[in-house]
């Protein structure tokens, strides 16, 4: 028999209450029987006994301490003797039952069961799409904030009860159900809604590769169609995940390596990418383009290795400074402490154009870049920040690029989950000329500023765009993009948004579709713009009257009655 968490709680209470309930039944039974056996006298002074009916009545009100007195007739001394026993027995029985109930409410297992039941109930009551986030660390917090900002729901699983409690401290607009439990257990994932049809994606963001791997396997087997996003730090874990078909494996270091390579090769494309994938509502600070020339890298760990690979791809010479002796003899390797000027000078910091401070120690990284800047003020600095708590220090030091892996993962997750088309667009810009990207970047940031815009996609079908769907189903009707993107409050101005990409049903994608592009059913459109434009466009595509206003400028009345009156007035005018 399948047991839901609610039933589980019910059974737990029943099992714990077994002994106290039996004790109460026995006490009441013994008391009642005893009272029927005790000799008494009736109204006429004749010997008689209480019947079961009266005895049970008396015991019921005595045991519950209501105490109506001696009913139906005054008791004999023998009966009173037995009643004394009954009173003390029932007090003991109730005390035992109450203490059992109180102990149950204090019990850790019971409280855990109550919490997980409440959590499951909350998840079950979510009536809109939600994302399941496993691990509420720095990354999880960023993603929750961004989802909340976008008006999307999230469900959080976190192993550490302290961190799980943080969810309630960070104020979110929507209620985020959170459970302190180990997300690597399939049953916990199921309670959190992994198999719920409203779950739109699962993110494994714990700082433990093994746990992320377990979540990926559960997601793959229990909900094969669900997009699973997994954070991973070691390449072998990534290979393991890839082997059973995890679609999105996010290695923040490798990802930043790709970004760095892109920034070196095509700076405008890189800026466009950071602007489009930023955390919504934040402002992107445009840094200078990374220069080409000799680089110095401090700390050859997994991050350092990814950076070296990126610089190699762009054929830039790298000098590595590491505390350990050379592991890779093909490279220029200086064994020493990069925080000191000696090692940096030895690595040729004077001639270098850039430095990557990539050790796992935040203080070391800061020390390295401060010393290096003193030796060569024009250096382009790439600074790795490991711990969120040190943010103030990193902000104070004005680095060109600060690498925060939690932010990289968060951006990546959001881009994949909320706008799948964006990935297509970003891949395309990486293959185009940089001048092309620069043109788009200047046009868009000129219009929308450097604040991270809302990026969203729209599919022209019945559920998402009912008004457009109905309009296009009429024979001979047309709809061009320029008309659709007019302001529904004032059709003579355009909405503050731009179409980046249009994907036809067949699969051909058109970059930057023009205003005269005809929209067909099944098209998917990627849009970028102000959040207001997203709301206004939703109004246009959902409300037939708004759509007609945008197309023709006539304001149609809303209800049937008003429409009927309007038709009557119109026909009356015509007949006149």
């Amino acid at each position, binding site marked *: *028999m399948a*047991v839901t968490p609610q*039933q*589980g709680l019910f*059974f*737990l209470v*029943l*099992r*714990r*209450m*077994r002994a106290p*309930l*039996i004790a109460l*039944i*026995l006490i009441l*039974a013994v008391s*009642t*029987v005893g009272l*029927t056996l005790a000799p008494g006298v009736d109204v006429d002074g004749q010997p008689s006994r209480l*019947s*079961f*009916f*009266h005895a049970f009545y008396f015991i019921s009100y005595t045991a519950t301490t209501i105490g109506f007195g001696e009913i139906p007739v005054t008791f004999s001394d023998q009966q009173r003797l037995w009643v004394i026993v009954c009173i003390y027995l029932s007090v003991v029985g109730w005390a035992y039952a109450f203490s059992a109930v109180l102990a149950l409410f204090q019990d850790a297992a019971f409280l855990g069961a109550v919490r997980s039941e409440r959590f499951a109930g909350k998840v079950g009551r979510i009536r809109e799409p939600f994302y399941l986030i496993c691990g509420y660390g720095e990354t999880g917090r960023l993603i929750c904030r961004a989802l909340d900002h976008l008006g999307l729901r999230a469900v959080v699983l976190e192993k550490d009860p302290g961190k799980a409690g943080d969810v309630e401290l960070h104020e979110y607009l929507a209620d985020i159900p959170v459970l302190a439990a180990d997300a690597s257990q399939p049953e916990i994932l199921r309670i959190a809604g992994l198999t719920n049809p409203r779950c739109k994606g699962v993110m494994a963001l714990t700082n433990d590769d093994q746990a992320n791997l377990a979540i990926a396997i559960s997601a793959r087997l229990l909900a094969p169609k669900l997009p699973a996003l997994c954070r991973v730090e070691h390449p072998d874990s990534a290979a393991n995940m890839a082997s059973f078909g995890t679609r999105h494996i996010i290695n923040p270091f490798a990802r930043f390596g790709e970004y760095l390579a892109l920034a070196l090769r095509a700076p405008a494309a890189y800026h466009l990418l950071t602007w489009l994938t930023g955390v919504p509502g934040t402002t992107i600070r445009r840094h200078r383009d990374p220069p080409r020339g000799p680089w110095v890298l401090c700390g050859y760990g997994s991050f350092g290795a990814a950076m070296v690979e990126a610089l190699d791809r762009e054929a830039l010479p790298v000098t590595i400074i590491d505390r350990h002796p050379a592991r890779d003899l093909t490279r220029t390797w200086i064994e020493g402490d990069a925080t000191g000027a000696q090692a940096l000078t030895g690595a040729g910091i004077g001639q270098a154009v850039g430095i990557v401070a990539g050790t796992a120690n935040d203080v070391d990284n800061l020390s390295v870049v401060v010393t290096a800047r003193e030796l060569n003020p024009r250096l382009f600095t790439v600074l790795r920040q490991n711990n969120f708590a040190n943010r103030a220090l990193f902000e104070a030091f004005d680095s060109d690029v600060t690498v925060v892996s939690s932010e990289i993962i968060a951006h990546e997750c959001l881009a994949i989950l909320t706008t799948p088309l964006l990935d297509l667009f970003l891949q395309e810009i990486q293959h185009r000329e940089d001048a092309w990207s620069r043109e788009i970047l200047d046009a868009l940031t000129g219009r929308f500023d450097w604040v991270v815009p809302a990026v969203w996609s729209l599919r022209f079908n019945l559920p998402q765009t009912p008004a457009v769907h109905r309009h296009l189903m009429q024979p001979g009707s047309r709809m061009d993009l320029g008309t659709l993107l007019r302001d529904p409050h004032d059709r003579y101005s355009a909405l503050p948004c731009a179409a980046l990409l249009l994907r036809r049903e067949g699969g051909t994608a058109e970059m930057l579709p023009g205003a005269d592009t005809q929209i067909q059913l099944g098209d998917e459109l990627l849009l970028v713009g102000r959040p207001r434009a997203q709301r206004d466009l939703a109004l246009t595509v959902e409300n037939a009257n708004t759509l007609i206003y945008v197309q023709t400028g006539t304001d149609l009345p809303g209800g049937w009655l008003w429409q009927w009156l309007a038709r009557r007035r119109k026909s009356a005018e015509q007949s006149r």
Partner: protein
Amino acid sequence: MNLEKVIFGFFIVLAATLNFGFFIGDIDNPVHHDVYELFAAIVVNLIATVLKFGDRTQIGAVHLSTSLVADLQLLAAAMVWGYGTHILGQGMTPEITTSVVSLSGGALFANIVSVIILIAETIMQRR
């Protein structure tokens, strides 16, 4: 041997036997049906019900439901008895006796089902 199993079996069989003891006899003759036996049957049935609480298995669920049926029937019998002897005030007339005994007969059937399940469970486990 498991003490819990002994107690469990004891109460289930005792519930059935007490119920049977009350039920047996001429259906309308109050002399054949002692009210103390009815009371004992009710108490033992209630205890048997509580003992079945919290079993998540399929067989445990059927166990619990048969016990609940027996409780319901016996409590109905007790209410009819109370109504007949105290509210109508005519004592145990043949009509009231028949009604009480037939209700307890229904409970007896539920108790027999319970015992059969107990036996089936024991045979199934073969331990």
